[in-house]
Each structure stands twice: as C-alpha cells, then as structure tokens.
C-alpha cells in the first residue's frame, strides 16, 4: 500500500461555541457535529468565521465560551502541539531551511520515529502526493502546487485522525485547483481520516464534500449535503450562495393556505405558507424553470411569468437565458440541449411548477454579503 495507514477518523463536536475579540463576536454560538471520516467543508463569504472555527479546532486560538470535543474528548486548554491534528495552510508554510524530505520527516522526528522507519513513512507520504522525486529540493525550488502537495504530505505523514485545510488551493490557478481537488478527494477516500476543509468557493465545496456547513456573519446558516443545500436551502442566504438563482419579491397574500405573490402583471402560486409573519421571497433555480412562447404549451397548475429575452448565451451543453420580467427582475433560465431557440427581444413565458420553487423568509443580509 502506498498511502499512510488507514486510520479511524476522529469525530468533532462543537457545542454553543463563541469566539469574541474584545467587543467583536467572530463566532456566535455555533453548533457543528462532524462524523468520523467525514469530509466536511466550511463554506462562506470572507470574514464569516471559517478560519476562526478551524483555529479553534486546531488549538491556535482559545474558545471564548462553549464546548469543543475531538474524538470524544474535550480539548479545552490542550495546546495545539498536543492535539495531533494535521493542518494545511493557504500559504503552504513549508520550512524554507529544510528540504522537502526534511519537512515531511519533521513531525515524525518530533514523535521519536527514527531511521529506516522514518524514511519509509516519508517516502510513503511523498508517494501519496506524487512528490517522491523532489525529496532533495528546497521549498523555494518548487511551484505553488508542488509546495502544497508537500504540505499535505507533511500534515498526513504522522497519520493524524483529523486533517484541517484552510483554503489550501486558494493561491493556485483554476486547472491546478481542479486537479488537486480530485487528488484530495482520492486521498480522503484512501485514508478514512476526517477532513475539515475551508473554502469560499461553492463549486469547490460541492466537488469535495460529504457535507457543507454554510457560514454567514459568525453563524452557521445550514449544514447538509450539497444536494440538500441546493434543493432545500433553509435560508435565502444559503440559496443564493450555493449555485445560481433568481429571487422573486412582490406583494403576497394567502389564498386557501397557499402563498400567492404578484410579480408585475403576473401571479405566482407557492404551496403552503411561511410560519410567522416573515416577508416571503421565492427562489428559482435556472434548470428547474423553462422558457415557452407566450401562452403556448400550457400545463395545469404551472406558474407563468411573462417577460422579454435580454440575453441568450449558448453554452454547448445547452443555453442560458436572462429574461426581464414585467416587474423589472431578471430571471435566469437554463434550457437543455435540443430545446427551442429564443432570441434577444423575444417575448417569452418563464414557467415552473409550485414544486420547482422554494419559498423562503426574506433576509436583507443575503443581498449585501454577496455583492
């Protein structure tokens, strides 16, 4: 076997954790349970508290209040060097005065592993990230992607039950990112270690994760699989942060227990109503809406919003349209390959069934944070 030994991943249990810097609250009462061997991604915009959470787990900062358990044991007060957690940083953090081989051997030396045993484990870790041929180079003789692979080997060589990564691919170009994402996924599969990964790139989160925790302003808005977050966002913020979306806002009334929203000259029906008296908004996904000629191909129960094609983009795998609705909102619609063709200026209907939309409470912060 080429990779370090398969180790049982550690579970992480964070309960009501807060982190305050003076009067500023960076993390506000978060609850997060990560299962052994899970690939959990912390996703959110800049300043939302992702790094702070990772630093708490790694022991780089102290928790202000709340509980943190790793592998079933409370780690409050345990310094970072006693936590036995691998950490990969965005800035690589390789030791510039040591060769690649020495860098990877470093955590083993600290654990009293010597001689042939150490050599063998260093080689195994470097094999895993395909960097064996570079063992004698210094970090400044490597590209960014190579340095990050070495950093990954160094963080895994001592078989930690938990690996933390803070935007490890943030400084790399797109192609390299995509390739390394697959490498990281493969390594996670091979090792069974618990991975906690920080990113602000939702696509990266969807590619990598078993589950995603969406952060916003020091709170966790929702935790779930990519599919759950995409199909059933709990908040407008999550819906807008994951994937493309159109948000409809308008005066609403409740008719027969259903919500009816007026969009310009048209009305949209959504099943059920929101609890409480929050102002409702409707979230639409581009591929769960379709374009039809005005009035044509009517299906009972579907919603139709009339508008004009403002932009038509051919994507190879299909087309993407931007449609100006009668209330001035721009709706994004994706149609699969082989669908009817529409041109800029064409009058169209944007159609979708009540099952294709998501009814959510309005949240002003969702717009501000995203721009």
């Amino acid at each position: 076997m080429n990779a370090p030994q398969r180790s049982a991943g550690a579970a992480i249990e964070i309960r009501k954790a807060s982190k305050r810097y003076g009067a500023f609250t960076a993390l506000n009462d978060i609850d997060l349970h990560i299962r052994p061997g899970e690939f959990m991604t912390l996703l959110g915009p800049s300043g939302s508290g992702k790094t702070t959470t990772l630093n708490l787990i790694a022991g780089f900062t102290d928790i202000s209040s709340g509980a943190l358990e790793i592998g079933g044991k409370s780690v409050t007060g345990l310094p970072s060097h006693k936590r036995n957690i691998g950490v990969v940083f965005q800035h690589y953090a390789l030791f510039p005065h040591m060769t690649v081989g020495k860098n990877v051997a470093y955590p083993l030396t600290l654990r009293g592993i010597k001689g042939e045993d150490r050599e063998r484990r260093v080689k195994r870790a470097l094999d895993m990230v395909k960097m064996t041929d570079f063992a004698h180079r210094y970090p400044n003789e490597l590209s960014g992607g190579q340095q990050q692979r070495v950093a990954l080997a160094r963080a895994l060589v001592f078989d930690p039950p938990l690996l933390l990564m803070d935007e490890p691919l943030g400084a790399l170009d797109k192609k390299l990112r995509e390739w390394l994402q697959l490498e990281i996924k493969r390594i996670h599969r091979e090792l069974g270690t618990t991975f906690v990964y920080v990113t602000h790139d939702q696509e990266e989160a969807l590619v990598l994760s078993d589950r995603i925790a969406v952060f916003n302003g020091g709170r966790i808005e929702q935790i779930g699989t990519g599919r759950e977050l995409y199909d059933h966002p709990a908040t407008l913020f999550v819906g807008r942060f994951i994937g493309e979306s159109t948000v409809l806002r308008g005066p609403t009334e409740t008719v027969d227990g259903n919500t009816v929203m007026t969009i310009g000259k048209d009305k949209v029906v959504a099943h059920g109503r929101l609890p409480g008296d929050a102002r409702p908004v409707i979230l639409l996904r581009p591929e769960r809406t379709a374009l039809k000629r005005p009035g044509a191909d009517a299906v009972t129960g579907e919603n139709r919003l009339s508008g004009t094609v403002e932009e038509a983009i051919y994507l190879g795998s299909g087309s993407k349209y931007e449609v100006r609705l009668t209330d001035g909102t721009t709706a994004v619609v994706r149609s699969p390959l082989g669908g009817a063709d529409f041109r800029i200026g064409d009058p169209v209907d944007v159609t979708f069934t009540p099952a294709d939309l998501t009814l959510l409470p309005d949240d002003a912060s969702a717009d501000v944070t995203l721009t």
Partner: protein
Amino acid sequence: MPSFPRVFLGLFCLLVAVLLLAPTLVVIPMSFNGNKSLAFPPVGFSWQWYANFFSNPDWTTSFTNSLIIALIVAVVATVVGTLAAFGVTRAAARTGGLLRALLITPMVVPGVVLAIGIYAVYLDAHLVGTVVGFVLAHTMLAIPFVLIAVQASLEVFDRRLETAASSLGAGRLTVFRTVTLPLILPGILSGALFAFITSFDEIIVALFITSPYLKTLPVQIYTSITRDADPTVAAVGTLLFIATSLIIVAGLLFGMRRGRT
C-alpha cells in the same frame, strides 16, 4: 561603448574607494619600517615590529584582554540583544517602538558623555580596571547593534511557520530551536560579530575605566603612539586588517551558501 555618465560614475566610485582605503594602505608599508619612526614613506624593511607585538608583554597582554572581553561581550550582548529584539518585535506596536528607542540610546548618546557617567559610577562600585567593568560597559554599547540586526531578521521571519510547527507537534522551545532560531541565525550571527567588534574596537570608555593593570588593545595602541612613535602600532593595524578581511570574506561565503538554499 559605455556612455559618458557611466564612465564618470565609475571614476567617481574609484575615487571614493581610494579615499576609503588610503589610510589602511598607508599602514601596511609602515609596519615593515626599518627605523623606529612612523614617517611615511617608510625606510628599509624589517619584521621587527611584528616580532615586538608577539613578544612584548605590554602588547600580548592587552591583546588577550581585548580578546577575552570582546568574546564575553559578544556572548552576553547577543543573548540579551536577541531577547530584547523578540520583546520589541512581538510587543504591541507602541510599547515596542518605545522600548526600541530606549534600547538604542547608547548608540545615539555621545561616547564621552557615556564614558563620564560610567566612570563616575564605577569609581564608587570599584569596577574601574576590572574585566567585569569592561564587559558591562561594552555590553551596553553592543546591545543596540545586536538588537537592530536581530530585529531586522525577525521582521522578515514568517511567524506562521511557528504555527505550522506547533500543529506538527512541536512545543514552544522546540519550535524556537528547530524553526525560529535557524531562520534568524544570520541576523544573530551578524549581531554577535558587531558586538565583538564594538567591544574590541572601543576606546573612549576604555580610556576612562582602564588601569595600569588592565589595558585593552586600543588603550595600548593609544598610549604607545602618544608616548613614542612605535611602528608596532602599524603592525597591529595590519594584523587586524587581515583578520577583519578574513572574517568578512568568510561571512560573504557563508551568506552565499545560505542564499542558495
């Protein structure tokens, strides 16, 4: 063909170099003077002044004194100065700035003022003419040099490497020994060298706190040249010139080797 400004610049650099080197280049021929005189150009050729330096106890003792004092100063000032540099760099910006200003005053205050102050205190404390007295005074003068050299390398040192080392299992002392120290070592070494030279070279304070029983080399040079025109001074100068040149070349080679990595 090089343009006129380039030629002019080149000539100007040469002139400055000659000006800087001239005193040194005058000393070397004088050290081989055949006569007991410091007149330039020298007359004849002999090794006698070198022989005198190595055999006359006045010279050998003062040289050993200077060497011992400068070595102790280099060690003490480097340790204290390095710790101070950590404090200054890692304290809050305002406190750090204040501390730094305070710590480098010995560099700014005129030497004579310091010398008078030290002399006054030493008289009471019976430190005049003692090794401890010299070491204390010279350490004070040397600390600012160490502070500046080490602080410069601490400022470019990436503290995130310490975080990384800690996550890999290194306690604070191990982090310092295996990561911080090796990376700021060039700064510490140049600080130590500056400290050594500061002490070895020091004359103003030394003239005040010297005694007939404890003279350093600069004091011996000064007294010998004011008493009689002894060309041994030129021989000492030449030896020191060779020694410093060797140290600098070694330093450059060391720097080049590190620079590669």
